[in-house]
């Protein structure tokens, strides 16, 4: 063991002892490794000669495995999450997961023949930003940034920026508008989210 490793080991041991478990234990490298895994899985789905519905199912698995779905769902629901019961929140989270998987999973068609490359990771505020470049056939390469945190207890991504478009914000606007249309009826929204194909 080199001295640097030893010092690093000692320091992180001390840091872990001093902090509640899981908080800020993450490094930029760990965030990058997580996105490496996500991207490897996504590239696999892009390349697989499977049907669109199979791709959507695969995407849902990736989403559940690597994203902090409860946090994303709560953020999307916004202030309305405060008046929701525990049971409603759970039901909303599950319905939201299905809705997101279908909505974004369908876009895999656009990615056929393309690939995503992980660039660099850095610490930003209380979390990490991992930048990637998406190469689509016949398009100039564009940037996709993943925001990663381990505050849920595990390293997970909680937001994606595609060419600067904030997925969390976009979905919060959308869920808010859907809720307005249903006069604030959360149960109706949950029902409808499950049924959107």
């Amino acid at each position: 063991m080199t001295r640097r490793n030893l010092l690093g080991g000692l320091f992180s041991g001390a840091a872990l002892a001093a902090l509640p478990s899981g908080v800020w234990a993450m490094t930029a490298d760990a965030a990058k490794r997580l996105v490496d895994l996500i991207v490897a899985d996504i590239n696999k789905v892009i390349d697989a000669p499977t049907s669109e519905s199979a791709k959507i199912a695969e995407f849902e698995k990736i989403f559940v495995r690597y994203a902090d779905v409860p946090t994303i769902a709560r953020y999307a629901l916004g202030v309305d999450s405060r008046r929701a019961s525990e049971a409603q929140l759970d039901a909303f989270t599950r319905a939201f997961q299905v809705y997101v998987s279908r909505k974004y999973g369908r876009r895999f068609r656009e990615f056929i023949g393309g690939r995503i490359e992980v660039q660099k990771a850095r610490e930003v505020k209380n979390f990490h930003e991992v930048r990637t470049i998406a190469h689509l056939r016949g398009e100039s390469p564009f940037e996709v940034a993943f925001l990663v945190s381990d505050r849920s207890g595990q390293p997970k991504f909680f937001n994606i920026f595609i060419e600067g478009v904030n997925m969390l914000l976009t979905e919060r606007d959308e869920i808010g508008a859907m809720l307005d249309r249903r006069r604030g009826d959360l149960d109706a929204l949950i029902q409808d989210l499950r049924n959107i194909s």
Partner: protein
Amino acid sequence: MHTPAFFPKTGFSADAARAVGIARLGLSACLVVGLAGCSVPDSDDAPGDIHDPYEETNRNNHELNRALDRGLIRPAGKGYASTLPAPVAETLSNFGSNLSLPGTVVNNLLQGNVGGALQNTYRFAFNTVFGIGGLGDPAGDFGITEVETDFGATLHVWGVPEGAYVELPILGPSTERDAVGRVVDLFTNPLSYTLPKPEKYYGTVANAASKLGDRGRYSDTVDSVLYESADSYSQSRSMYLQNRRFELGSDDDDAYLDQYDDPYDEIYDDPYSE
């Protein structure tokens, strides 16, 4: 210019397709009153803020654009994408995009971006020669991609404010500044002064066709915003502004930091702190 079309844009224009940046098309009240007349929000322009004083008119235009898309552009785009083999569509798109590069170089220079101008000039020369008049994109294979820009971006560099959000009939989402940029860009391409008729229209036609192809190719994504979202106007507006501001600020590594909300702070009353 060839903008990644991952995000749906709601406008399409055959004659103005030259500048492509999918929704950044425009004509505007701003033109009438001049640049100084651009509507500016009272407070400082915070990222994420939306300045939309013409919302009622914009929403009417949005409905018009949706009807136009549903009746004409969407079916045509889907037909185009399913009829034309992908390699042919790509060739056409390369061709149009190559011919619009000199206009991009002019804007690179107006912004003082000499590196960008050189890269685009090199790309243009390389693809014109080795890509057989720009039909292929061998430069892209060597990583010499386009440094995209337009006159709207030039105005941004010159310090002109974004102005109000506008959704224009036929042309789609824009801002007052970008609308002016769109009009000026009809005149920034040197090729349009040097090529004879009808050759000087080839690029425009190819770009229009490739935009139609994009509508078909990204059909699901565009549909999900235009027809499946609860408020398609506000979704298009939000996506357009986020994407455009990102493009304009993307040289700056930290330009988007203040957009990075921490949902963990907001959602919970910090459950992890106990």
